[in-house]
């Protein structure tokens, strides 16, 4: 089965951090990475995030599907940047070193390549951390941590529930698909793409109906047990902060300061070697 957003239970230092810590670190980290176009910092962040990934004992094969999607997204993103603003680097860095020219007035410049290198590095600096967060945080802890950083608990809980039911819905999709295959409605390779989409969408119909039933029953169950009664709620899974939590947040903050510091030193978000 495809692993989309799924908690993977494998004891590691990352797993032991509280959900709130991980969410805070993720946010700070993302700010640090998004705020800067300095490849030195981005290299550091990318190296660190890949290191953290190893520390968490999550394997590449656990997140293969998500990695694949983000990889193609990254490629597409870069192609589009080049197609629509091939001279963006030139504008940013105020210099133009053309390497070669292409038809239709396009040209490859050092500045553009440097700019797009930064974009690629940003993916490497953030995606591993996002995957890390998703794979090492239990949905209920995730809800608790969203709530802890100030989101309404109703919203937090609905996000967590949605994540939690993804595997169930996947399983159901699989079951429904089998019964349809038995009737000769095939979805495997060898069926034309258009036909495949049509056949797969036939499954969505029963799937949506049964998901609606599920939502109704879970909503009743939650109301019957007092969900939504008070403005606040407490969390059974809440854990007090440990030393490691403070340390992780501190490290993230240091990285954010570094990012801000570099922006000040460079005089802009962009590091200009030209």
């Amino acid at each position, binding site marked *: 089965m495809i692993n989309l957003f799924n908690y993977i239970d494998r004891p590691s230092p990352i797993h032991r951090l509280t959900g709130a810590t991980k969410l805070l670190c993720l946010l700070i980290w993302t700010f640090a990475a998004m705020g800067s176009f300095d490849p030195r910092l981005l290299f550091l962040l990318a190296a660190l995030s890949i290191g953290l990934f190893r520390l968490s004992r999550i394997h590449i094969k656990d997140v293969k599907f998500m990695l694949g999607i983000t990889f193609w997204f990254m490629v597409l993103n870069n192609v589009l940047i080049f197609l629509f603003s091939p001279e963006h680097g030139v504008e940013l860095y105020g210099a133009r070193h053309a390497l070669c020219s292409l038809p239709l007035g396009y040209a490859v410049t050092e500045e553009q390549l440097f700019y797009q290198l930064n974009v690629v590095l940003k993916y490497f600096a953030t995606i591993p951390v996002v995957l890390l967060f998703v794979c090492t945080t239990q*949905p209920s802890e995730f809800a608790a941590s969203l709530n802890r950083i100030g989101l309404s608990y109703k919203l937090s809980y609905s996000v967590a529930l949605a994540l939690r039911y993804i595997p169930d819905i996947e399983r159901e999709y699989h079951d429904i698909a089998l019964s349809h295959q038995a*009737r000769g409605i095939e979805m495997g390779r060898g069926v034309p793409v258009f036909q495949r989409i049509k056949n797969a969408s036939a499954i969505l119909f*029963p799937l949506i109906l049964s998901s609606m039933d599920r939502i109704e029953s879970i909503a009743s169950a939650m*109301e019957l*047990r007092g969900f939504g009664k008070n403005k606040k709620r*407490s969390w059974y899974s809440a854990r007090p902060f440990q030393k490691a939590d403070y340390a992780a947040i501190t490290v993230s903050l240091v990285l954010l300061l570094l990012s801000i510091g570099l922006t000040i030193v460079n005089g802009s978000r962009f590091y200009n070697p030209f």
Partner: protein
Amino acid sequence: MSRPVIEFDHFSFQYDAQAEPTLKDVSLTLFEGEKVLIAGPSGCGKSTLAHCLNGLIPFAYPGKIEGSLKVAGRETREMSIFELSKRVGTVLQDSDGQFIGLTVAEDIAFALENDVTPLPEMKARVKEAAELVDVAGHLAHAPHELSGGQKQRVSLAGVMVDDVEILLFDEPLANLDPATGRQAVELIDDIQKRTGATVVMIEHRLEEALTRPVDRVILVDEGKVVADLSPDELVCSPLLKEIGLREPLYVTALKYAGLPIHPGMRAGSLGTLTLTEAEKEAVRRWFTGAPEAERGPAPKPLLEARGLDFQYPNGLKALTGIDLTVGEGEMMAIVGCNGAGKSTFAKLLCGFEKPGGGSIRFRGRDILGDSVKARADHIGYVMQNPNQMISHAMIRDEVASGLVARGLPKQEIDRRAEQALTICSLRPFRSWPVSALSYGQKKRLTIASILALEPEILILDEPTAGQDFRNYTRIMEFLRELNGRGIAIVMITHDMHLMLEYCPRAAVFAGGRLIADKSGAAVLTDPETVKKASLRETSLYALSLMCGISDARAFAQRFIDHDREVRG
């Protein structure tokens, strides 16, 4: 008399979307510490009654209320659903749907979390509630690591952390295997004795629900309370038959033996049943009165599984060395507890999974290499939930979908679709939308869509799950009719009545092995098999022992033969 806790007074309720009231002029009083069973056929309004009690009506399902309903002396329409939930704890039918937390402990704590209970107090109360229902050893487990019975215990603990006065069980037996169902009834009884809570059980399986004594049975039909009796009085009255509920099997057996049921027999529960010597003699005479019906010769083998093995990718062994033959035109059941390997076996037959070893032959030809689609021409598979199978908006399109996918000529599609619709008595509806059908009709529609492929074997997963006696009888008589047309029928089921009444043969799975392959009557009167497969003995077994008949299997068979004759 003790204090009244639930008082319906000329209470009516009409859903906003419906033209008729679902509950009509209900007057009913339940007292503190009572244990009451509310029974009635599907659609009689018993679930609506439960929703009125726990506040889902009118808070989640709006509608028009007339008359009064008081819980613990207060008018419910003046209370919020949250206030009400502090007094009435509801254990829903589907314990999967009710499982909100990610672990047992979190789920039990859910109501406390919503009350902003501080963490240390929360942990203490969760532990206490978990101990009460005996799940304290599983606090860190996720729902999918628990059995159905354990999930239900967790649900119960989740409402008991609040010290509710009234416990409301909505069809507590619906999703449990027979042995677990019995434990559930015992658990409810124990909890009630220990806490003194008022217990309201909504259930249509009368015999099972009455395993432990209840104070009163309230019968509901067409939105009205039609009886309010003790169980002993209830089984003497003709009411059960009139509203389409199944009376306990031992009661039917006593009637077949020509005995009038009277309150002195205390026949409300098998545990209290007392028969005089003369009555026992009457039962023995009835038993020996007719010879056992002759069984025909074994049919020609149609589908043969030999030495089937199956292992999940995670190394868990699901099936070991299954040898099972389905004969031409047979009707049989595959039974066993959850995880025994029944569904996996069916999946192997249909080709959804590939076996690790062994062979599957159809009319002597090895079909292991055949695709799912090719096998479906011979072996039809009907899922438990019709809503999972139906993907077209119009009835005729649904039936034709498999034929269209096979690229058959239009004439042939029309012929086969018409025929399948006719067999399933759906022909008059063929141009209707699917949404206009009832659950039972949808079930028949899914069967029709498989029949259109003209299979020789039909495998049905839990064909009667969640159905009341009337619908059960309709579905099963329909399947018997199909069987009469020469189609072999294999049913995966928990339903003991189904096994007993409709299956000359039952294959029993336990722990991935086939542990018995004999008649339904023989399985359900064999304590050892019953124990291994998480079933429960039929009450006919106890009755035969009570009357000093040692061959319980023959006694059960006599009952089945007689029953067939009576019902035609």
